[in-house]
């Protein structure tokens, strides 16, 4: 799939030129040709990357149609587009710019690509963990065991709690974003507590446990395939029925899209934790309520593009709102505008957080900052690590006063089981509610 274009024989530091028009004809499904573009500008009008590097989605398509391949092949804008697919979502002709952006990214020589994204992909490939932070399997096993022992010791309610590792035949194969075991291990605990309360039959795997996958964002299709292969093999090996994705957006999308794209055999289902939060609350297994929020602290949610617009669509957006309302009270939930599949990417996706283009990323994120500000909410809930980090960063940068919290934190807060070390993201107002 990776087009070498006219790059063969060029020096390593030259970006080869792609024939975008020709490639578009190969890549795009029937009826979605770029020639169908009406140039109406709905894509650019609703794209936070419009204007960055003097480019926008409509311009990208027009330039492709005009054969301005050299300019497009070398445009840094492809690293500012988060491939969130909002342009396609609002396009009456359903034109998908993100496919060409992926193609353009893959065409950049490795040494010219943003080093942060490339490095994250290399680290993923460096161990059997598939961790973007390079945490090897034995270290992951150790951290999990260490944290578990501490919780059992210090929190009597959970003295028998389990965090199973490599348990064959477990119902759920649970993945984990590396940020927790690597940087904030106590953040794993609320999730274990939730599994404990609902009586879930789950396991971690020492191999391919990590969630993140920056190889897709680096445009390295082969590496993307390898990572997914490792993960699929690990789940198949343990014989689990469900690969349960934790609160991380792109990990779901890269796995789900990758399995289909590469035609892999996976003997299991892919599910998001959000779906199960909603199910367990509906079934009464997770007896959360909003009584703790007597001071009516307001919350909004950020729909991660990777699991809402680009994957599940409305059903998971609805589940997310059901869970949020159950946790904070219907009257304390304020929806962000726009929302669900029409939601804007926060600017943390597509590897933007790792790309080292801080100024551009914040310019992009200003739209999200405004949307959060318009809700007047004190907290944003989101089941996505990149959204989480980006919204925290733009909040600090633009002088916002909101906090960003994980669902697992609020679920445990509502249940009165949030340990002292598990309160990193709570502001004084939420701490008072404990």
């Amino acid at each position, binding site marked *: 799939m990776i087009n070498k274009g006219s790059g063969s024989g060029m020096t390593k530091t030259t970006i080869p030129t792609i024939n975008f028009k020709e490639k578009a004809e190969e890549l795009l499904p029937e009826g979605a040709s770029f020639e169908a573009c*009406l140039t*109406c*500008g*709905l894509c*650019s*009008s*609703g794209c936070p990357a*419009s*204007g960055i590097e*003097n480019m*926008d989605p409509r311009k990208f398509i027009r330039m492709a149609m005009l054969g301005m391949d050299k300019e497009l092949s070398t445009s840094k804008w492809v690293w500012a587009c988060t491939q969130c697919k909002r342009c396609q*979502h*609002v*396009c*009456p002709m*359903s034109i998908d710019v993100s496919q060409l952006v992926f193609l353009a990214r893959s065409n950049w020589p490795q040494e010219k690509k943003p080093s942060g994204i490339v490095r994250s992909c290399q680290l993923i490939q460096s161990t059997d963990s598939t961790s973007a932070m390079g945490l090897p399997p034995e270290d992951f096993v150790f951290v999990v065991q260490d944290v578990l022992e501490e919780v059992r010791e210090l929190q009597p309610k959970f003295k028998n709690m389990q965090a199973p590792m490599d348990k064959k035949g477990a119902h759920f194969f649970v993945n984990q974003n590396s940020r927790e075991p690597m940087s904030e291990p106590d953040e794993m605990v609320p999730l274990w507590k939730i599994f404990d309360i609902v009586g879930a039959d789950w396991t971690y795997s020492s191999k391919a446990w990590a969630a993140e996958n920056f190889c897709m964002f680096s445009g390295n299709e082969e590496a993307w395939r390898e990572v997914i292969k490792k993960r699929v093999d690990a789940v198949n090996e343990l014989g689990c029925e469900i690969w349960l994705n934790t609160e991380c957006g792109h990990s779901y999308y890269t796995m*789900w899209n990758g*399995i*289909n794209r590469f035609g*892999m055999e*996976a*003997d*299991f*289902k*892919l599910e998001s934790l959000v779906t199960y939060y909603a199910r367990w609350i509906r079934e009464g297994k997770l007896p959360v309520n909003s009584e703790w929020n007597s001071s009516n602290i307001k919350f909004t949610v950020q729909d991660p593009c990777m699991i809402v*617009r*680009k*994957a*599940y*669509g*409305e059903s998971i957006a*609805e589940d997310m709102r059901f869970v949020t309302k159950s946790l904070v009270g219907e009257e304390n939930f304020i*929806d962000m*505008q*726009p*929302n*669900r*599949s*029409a939601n804007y990417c926060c600017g943390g996706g597509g590897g933007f957080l790792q790309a080292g283009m801080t100024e551009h990323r914040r*310019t992009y994120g200003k*739209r999200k900052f*405004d*949307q959060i*500000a*318009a809700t007047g909410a004190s907290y944003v809930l989101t089941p996505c690590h990149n959204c989480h980090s980006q919204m925290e960063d733009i909040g600090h940068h633009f002088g916002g006063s909101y906090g960003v919290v994980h669902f697992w934190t609020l679920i445990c807060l509502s249940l009165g089981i949030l340990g002292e070390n598990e309160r990193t993201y709570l502001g004084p107002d939420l701490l008072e509610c404990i």
Partner: protein
Amino acid sequence: MIEEDRHFTAELAVIGTGLAGFAASIFALKRNIKTAQIGNTGAVAYTTGYLDLLGSLSPDYPTSIEDPWQGIEQLKSSHPNHPLCRIRKTDICTAFEQFTSFLGECGIAYTPPGKSNLSVLTPAGTLKPTLCIPSTMKVGSTAFSQKEPCVIIDFKGLKGFSGRQVVANLKDKWPRLSSSRIEFPDMVTGEIYPEVMARSLEVPATREKLAKILVEAAGDVKIIGLPAILGMHAPDLVRQEMEQLTGLQIFEIPTMPPSVPGIRLREMFEQLFPQKGVILVPQQKVDKLEFIKNGAQLSLSDSFGPITIHSKSVILATGRFLSGGLKARIDGINEPLLNLPVTQPDSRREWYREKYTDYRGHAINSAGIEVDSSFRPLDTRGQPYSRNLFAAGVILAHQDWIRGRCGAGVAIATAYKAVEEVEKLLR
């Protein structure tokens, strides 16, 4: 990978997410009909927000008409097959009332249908007749009729909307109209879009900053016209607050597509319909529609995989060429979903007249599908294709909605009629 099939059942499946499709779902909600709606991004986002009923009797009477109700009477003698001539006027009026009141209840207030057309501004500063308008635009219509002093504001970096152009086109009719160009607060230089400004104005701090600039730009004048940028999902509140902050009367003028009033409508429908119980599958087209015993089966896919919908009835509101309801091919025009016969000129040579702007219009624009008195599409034998299938909107033959300024009228009125017939079938 193990995937679960998704099945939905409904009493009514609306195919199409343009004005006719959304109107059909609104009327079905009113009648407690369990509805599923599917459609690719419709042309709703291109609308000005104005809801025309009938603005011209083109080609017989190519100038604007003031009384659309009288106009329909005239149409009955000149174009008896026009869809608007096949629906009782009281039903058309009820349809507009229900449609606009639904929009109002959902946060976008509209003027109710009146006895005559309003004369409203286009993005270029020309005038057009229409029946109902968003409340955010009402002051403009009144100010124009009373020729009040007014300033049209435009913005640096905003393409497709020029205060000077509006003034130049209206100066003979509106002498005390002037224009002023300002900078939108906190916007980086370069091209800016109405959508971006509208979303930005949902933030109170932006409203305060813009209010100060507007007061300065207005000078002694008390009425200002802005391109349609007053918020996205709560425009009436944003306008009200801007008026309070500035002490001015403010109205909106639609802009060129992509225009905020259209995006407002689409986002509102997409958010509210699922909350009201409609099974909405937006941004997707139906791949296959088959009629089986006592109903229909719709097959489609979204990004997550295949979906099957079983429904007792179907309303086809798939629009014309842009939306894919009709397809123009080398050998003629066809209807791609069911291959319904399309009334059309005998040959391609007759599709268009020599001059594109010919006021008599072009034959291709009146092409479309035929329906019986219950708005059931007809097959090649002139019989209803299925007792469970109905049609609404501009896919219908014998209307030229652009020249007739009757797009919303055809969409809303025929959707009302089709849903009424669906209810008869179901109950």
